Structures are given as C-alpha cells and as structure tokens.
C-alpha cells in the first residue's frame, strides 16, 4: 500500500473499492447467496481542490460509491486513504473526527432534514455532535452560515417545510460546510430542483469551493451538470469505472463505447444541431448487478461489440475482464477503446 504524504495534492485515494450487499437464498433454511455487487472494484484518486464527477445511469453504483468512500457504508473490500491515512473501516471516535473533514450533501433536500427541527438546530447539529463551540457562539456562527448560503438569518427558527426546494438544499449545504470540511461528497444535489434553481445551487457550490478550498466528489446522472462542475469525470457502469478523464477531454473525445453512447443520448437544446445528430442507441436493459455479464460487463449492450468487432475480438470481450488502461489522458476499461465513428456531441 503506497502512502501519500499528507502535504501531497492527493486528498483521497481509493483502491479497488467494493461494496456488496448480501442476499439470501429462498428455501426453508436461508443461506447467503450471490451478493448485489453495487460497487465492484473501483480505484481513483481525488486531488485537493478539484471536483471529481461521478456519472452513470441509475443502478450503476455511483451513489453507493459516494457513501462508501465516506464510510457511511462499510466497504466490502478495498481501501480508502484520506490525506495518506488509511481510514478503511474507521469507526467510533475516529469516524466522528473524520466527519469534521468529510461531509455529504444529499439529493432529497426535504428527506434529509428532520421536519421537527428548526433550521437553526439542523445547521447547528454538527457542532453539537462534535462538541465544538465556534467563536462567537453557535447561533452567531449558524446565522453567518445561513447568510453565506443565501438564506435569511432571521429564518433561524423556521422549519424545513416553510422553505422551497432550493432553499432546503441551501440548508443541507450550510450543514455540510458548517465544520469547514475538506471534502464533500455531493449526491445528486441538484437533480430534484427546477432548472432556474439548479443553476443557483451549482453556483453556490462553486463559490463555496473557492472560498473554503473544498474538494468535491460530485455524483450525478446529469451529464450537462457534471460537465459544468467537474474537473475530472468518471463514468460508471454496473459497479465499475468505464472511463476516467479530464472533463473536456472526456466530453470531446470519449474513448469508451459506453461513454460515447451516453453522451450521444443527451438531447441538446439546439434544434438545428439536434436534427443533424446521429444517436448511438443502446439496446436492451441494464443487466442485474447480482449476475453481471462475464468479461466486460458492458458487452451485452455494447454497440461496438455488436457492430464493429470480429468473432475472435468478441470472444475477448465476453471472457476477459478489461483492465484499466491509460490512453492519452484517459483511463479506459475497454479492450477496444477508441474514438467513436459518429460525432457524439
């Protein structure tokens, strides 16, 4: 296990992370059977101050990955180093201390706020839990936080239901940044919001990142938002990374057939361009994460596999798990990585 110096620019190093959810057999005596492999061996680093976008369709394991790296879920395998320190399996006091540095913003701003607590109490909770009293007292600090995220500090004593969706997400953000963490995992923070509000929250997150020197892992299914906010983007499919690259590189020159299909599917708000685009349509449905396809997990739906490869090449896809290979600035898990034949965007 390589250890990174605390002062290095890698804040989080994840190696071969796995999260499997157990299932049981039917029958009178229920034995454990094949687990759901929600996250199945992903490795990546997050650099200090950057935003890593984690994108994929529902069921690909991106949210589970986000929660597991924060130890909200216990990993089944692999390791997580934070600032060079192995935090895999941290619990109790260690974990509580880690929470001052690693926080999470959730998708559903209403569901993650206790409806019986005032905003003041909710935002102050991290201080209570950690037993920290900020300078000037908790209330003053909370009110200044509220102001910072664009809430009226006079609304300190109001309840979540008195706020709109966008405001609730601001409350969630205020709570997350209260302890000045270093790393925040944002799990679909804007997908429940209307377009005009979504932009407000995205901007707020960017401003806070600059101001507090935050590092984000931004989990989302919206490829446009990911492109806007991320420095690097990882594309997930069935618990594995398909492709990781710098933002613009990934969007302008995707090398993995899945990335290509994904990007080509997004409609562009530009009718003329849209009319000229050719879609790479994926056939069929997402396979089960309990019994993922052999070899490359994507091969069952892969257009390249279907249309471009010879039988011997296909054999490789169905039997051999593709290793992550470096192609230019890309890390791609595909035996036959390469640019798409059609323009995807």
């Amino acid at each position: 296990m390589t250890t990174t110096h605390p002062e290095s620019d890698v804040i989080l190093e994840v190696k071969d992370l796995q999260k499997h959810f157990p299932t049981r057999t039917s029958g009178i005596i229920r034995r454990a059977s094949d687990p759901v492999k929600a996250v199945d061996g992903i490795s990546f680093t997050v650099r200090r101050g950057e935003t890593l976008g984690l994108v994929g369709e529902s069921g690909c394991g991106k949210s589970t990955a986000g929660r597991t790296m924060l130890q909200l879920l216990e990993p089944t395998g692999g390791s997580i180093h934070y600032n060079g320190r192995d935090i895999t399996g941290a619990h109790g006091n260690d974990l509580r201390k880690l929470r001052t540095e690693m926080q999470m913003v959730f998708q559903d701003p209403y569901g993650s706020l206790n409806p019986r607590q005032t905003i003041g109490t909710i935002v102050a909770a991290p201080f209570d839990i950690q037993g920290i009293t900020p300078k000037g007292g908790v209330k003053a600090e909370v009110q200044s936080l509220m102001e910072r995220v664009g809430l009226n500090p006079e609304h300190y004593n109001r309840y979540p239901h008195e706020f709109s969706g966008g405001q609730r997400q601001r409350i969630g953000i205020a709570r997350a940044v209260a302890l000045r963490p270093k790393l925040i995992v944002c799990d679909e923070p804007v997908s429940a919001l209307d377009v005009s509000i979504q932009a407000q929250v995205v901007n707020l997150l960017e401003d806070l990142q600059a101001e507090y020197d935050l590092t984000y892992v931004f989990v989302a299914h919206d490829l446009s938002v990911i492109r806007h906010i991320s420095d690097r983007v990882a594309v997930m499919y069935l618990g594995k990374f398909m492709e990781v690259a710098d933002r613009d590189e990934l969007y302008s020159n995707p090398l993995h057939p899945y990335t290509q299909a994904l990007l080509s599917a997004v409609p562009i708000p530009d009718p003329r361009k849209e009319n000229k685009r050719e879609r790479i349509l994926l056939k069929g449905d997402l396979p089960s994460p309990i019994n993922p396809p052999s070899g490359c997990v994507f091969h069952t739906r892969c257009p390249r596999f279907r249309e471009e490869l010879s039988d011997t090449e296909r054999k490789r896809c169905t039997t051999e798990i593709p290793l992550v290979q470096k192609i230019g600035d890309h890390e791609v898990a595909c035996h036959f990585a390469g640019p798409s034949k059609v323009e995807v965007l």
Partner: protein
Amino acid sequence: MFAYIVRRVAAGMVMILAMSLVTMVLFFASPVDPARYTCGKNCTPELLEQNRKALGYDQPVLSYWVDFTKGIFVGSEFPKDPALKKSAPETIADCPAPCLGYSPQSSRPVRDIIVEKLPVSASLAIAAFIMWMIAGVGLGIVAALRKGTLVDRAIVGSALVFYAFPTFFIGLGLYVFLALKWGIVPVPAYTSIADGGVGLWLQGLLLPALTLALVYIAGYIRLTRAFVLEAKGEDYLRTAQAKGLKSGRILFKHTLRGALTPIATVAGLDLGGLLGGTIITEQVFNYDGLGRTAVMAATTYDLPVTVGIVLVAATFVITANIVVDVLYAVIDPRVKYS
C-alpha cells in the same frame, strides 16, 4: 413461498412456547397464592399445601413449563400420581397430545374447555366481522366518493360517536334498550347451531355482534375512506380515466382493488385478534366464549386455562399474520416471499 410459510410457522411456534413461559413466570411471580382459591372455607396450612400440590404449583416454574410443553407434544395425564393411577385409574384424566394442561378449577382438560368455548367466540367474531366489513367498507366508500358533502360528514361523524363510546356502554345500551326496555329483539343468549339451528344462533348473535361491529365500523369507515381517497389520487387512476373507462369500472376495478388491499390486511389481523375471544362483549352479553372464560380464569387464578387461552389467542393472531402476508402476495403481484 412454501419455504416462507414453513419458516413463519416455525417462528410462530417458538414464539407461542416463549409466551407460555412468560405467562407462567408472571403467574408464579405473583404474590397471590392460587391454592387459597381452591382450598375452601376452613382452610388449614396442611390443606393449603395439598391444594397447591393438586394444582401443580408446588414445583418450580421451569419444570411446570417443561411438563406443559411436553404435554403439547406427547400428551399428559392428571394428576401425575403413580400410586393413585395404580389404585384408582378411573380418577386419572387422560389428556392426549396436543395437551394444553388440565384445569383443576374446572376439573377437565383445558383443550376441552377451549373446544367448547371457541365456537362461541368464533361465531361472535365472524358475525361481527361480516357486519362491520359490509357496513364499514360500504359506508367508507360512499363517504370517500361524496367527500366533503353532508353525506360524508354524516357518515364519518356518526361513526365517530360509536368510536368514542366504550364497548361496554354500546353493548349495555343495546342490551338494555333494544332487548329489555323496548323488547325489539329477544334477550340475547348464545345458542349453538346444533342446539337451536341457524335461526336461533343468528338471533342470539344479533346484538353482541352488532355491538362489536359498531366499535369496529368507525375504524373501517375511516380507513376505507382514507384508502379510497388515497387510491383516487394515484396516477394509475388518472390513467384509467384517460383511457376513457366508465366511472363504475374505474371505481370497482381500479380504485377499490388498490384501496381494499390494505383493508384486507387490517381486517385479517382484526379477525385473528377477535377469534381468541372478545372480553367485554362476551361479558356484557354473557356469551360463554374464550374472552369471558379467560377473564374468569384470570380472576380465579386458573393458570392452565389462562395459558391455554393466551396460546390459542396468540395462535390466531400469529396465523392471521401469516395468512394476511400470504394473502398480500396473492393480491399484490409485486409482493414475493422467498
């Protein structure tokens, strides 16, 4: 599914045995000496000791429970006195498996008592169940369809009145006014079908079942109304409407199917709970069912009968739970047990 049922039944049996132990431990821990209740008037310490022995309470609770549990599986006999059995076998009560014990206060095996009282409680529960299901669900649907109107308010309001009154008052009120003062119905008394035919059986059930039903009707009206209203807000009803279906079809095929599923669950559990006896109604109407017998057993410290009825009632509740869960899988194709 079969495996699921087997697992649930096994878990239920373990729970029932645990409940019997808990009941016995509580009983043995009570400061009251049950032997006093059987000893007679001029009781002496020696007689008291003999009574305690005859009752079986001279042994520790655990061995009492082991005896009891053994009886369930292999049967038992009372009293367990080899000398007595040798010299006077005719005095030994045989209690074949599943033996639920022997009540010294009733001088017969508990199972016989339960077999005798169960039809009374079951008749009452089922008759009441039919009444409240028809009236409660029917009125609930009407109230939901007429939501906000006078009809709705009248139904919900009058249901609340019955809901607010204790069963005892409703029962006594019906008894005194309908049967005694005005003589509209005969004084209720339980007559088994074997003794009096279906007519007398139903006649006897009328008031007590109505009492019990009135208590439940309110809940079912509210429940049905709420579920129908909830179902009416479901997207799939909008779909049904958008398809151009007629309102009757929308109501019966689409709305009620969704709304009544949870009602079926609650109803099954309620019925299961009632089959084990309805204490207040049975007492008010002097129905010699499991509920009244249980109260009598508890007040006379008749442990075997108490335990027996507790277990039978628990069995009904547990069975109802299993049946309801299985039924749910039948009604709702999304539910699968493995």
